[in-house]
């Protein structure tokens, strides 16, 4: 079981959380102006990164707040957790 550091509550067991998928996917501001390609991409296409992955978590059975995390999907190790609205941290990786 993962130990996840909620930015508001500190480290808690995975059972308290739900996973919210890839982070930093912005909803188009004017959906009516977006074509089928871009709308389909927004809804469904995902990086599914092997390696560093920015993702949303929700501390459902705790503070109930959403936050973002940077995790390595080849080891499941968390490198950072941060509040929603903050940019993805760069931890020395090539941008």
């Amino acid at each position, binding site marked *: 079981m993962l130990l996840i550091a909620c930015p508001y509550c500190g480290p808690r067991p995975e059972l308290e959380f739900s*996973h919210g998928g890839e982070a930093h996917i912005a909803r188009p501001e004017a959906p009516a102006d977006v074509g089928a390609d871009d709308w389909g991409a927004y809804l469904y*296409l995902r990086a*599914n990164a092997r390696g560093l*992955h920015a993702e949303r978590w929700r501390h459902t059975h705790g503070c109930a707040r959403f936050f973002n995390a940077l995790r390595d999907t*080849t080891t*499941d190790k968390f490198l950072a957790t941060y509040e929603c609205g903050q940019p993805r941290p760069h931890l020395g990786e090539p941008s």
Partner: protein
Amino acid sequence: MQRFSAFQLFKQGLAGQAGWKPQWRSPEPKASYDAVIIGGGGHGLGAAYYLAKQHGLRNIAVVEKGWLGGGNTGRNTTIIRSNYLFGESAALYDHAVKLWEGLSRELNYNVMFSQRGVLTLAHNVHDVQVLGRHIHANRANGVDNEWLTPEEAKAFCPPLNIAANIRYPVLGGALQRRGGTARHDAVAWGYARAADALGVDILENCEVIGIRRGVGGAVEAVETTRGLIQTRKIGVSAAGHTSVVLDLAGVRLPLESYPLQALVSEPVKPVFPCVVMSNTIHAYISQSDKGELVIGAGTDIYTSYTQRGGLHISQHTLEAICELFPAFRRLKMLRNWGGIVDLTPDRSPIVGKTPVRGLYVNCGWGTGGFKATPGAAHTFAWTIAKDEPHPINAPFTLERFREGRLIDEAAAAAVAH
């Protein structure tokens, strides 16, 4: 190919079993092939076999980064069924079941397909109604499925606990008698041996590290750890790693890869005659011919490529199994493992062309790809050979996510399956 038969077994027995040859060659990669399949699991090897057998393409390679059947082909719980809700799915999965029925003979390889029946349990009124809907939909699509009362379910599967006072009592179940299990390794090996006999080169320990595109963006070569291979057609059957492979060609997919765990008990004498699944309490179980109880459940909650998951997922599964089958409470679990499954948003697969010319993909089978192996491979080979959809895989295009024509088996079953 050295054919297997009772006579061969007898003859080789007289010679001390010393005359058996390797079942497939280990060739060096050639400089070019007419088609290259990426992924040496059942789906990829099967596609190579049908390309060679039915479409006359003999100059083919299957490239596999590890060993054959070492991915999800060797990591699943081997359940085969076709009782899906929608017509498109029923056609695809039942095509597979029909091929399973003749596969051992077709490949001259015993894949140990055993139609012992798949029983899906209902635990509440909603389950009873949903399974009823499934049974009627399946029958309308020509797929067998029938309702069993708790007593009939108990008669069909004697270890089942149908007491009324358990947390999730059994109110009945839907039985697909044509469903069952097969021997997972034998499927990969059988396809590999048959494909090799038709001239297909099987290249193990050969990881794809690049896909080269030429004029008009069409594929022209794959870069591998064993050298550059020229080809005009690439078929990708890389399961949980499909996103990684297609990223090499600049194609993004509606896939997310999750760990799916399974486990087996210590081997015991035959105690379990069928396959039992429960979507509500989320567990499934059968008994292998070695005697191990083969148990599985849902995915972990986060995306990962680690081929392992949290122990609490297996614990939850075993709690459900022990309540349904109290006799198994004292069994020890022998092994626990994970595979990486590629889930699509609608939990239906993607089989067909990609925006890149000459690049084809067979992915998104999620938690239920094994059952589809022959059907997926057969229709995928058609698509690669003719550069057009097979009537059965035509609804399962990548474009459906652009056009909104989803085949929403996720909502239909309420679980990842």
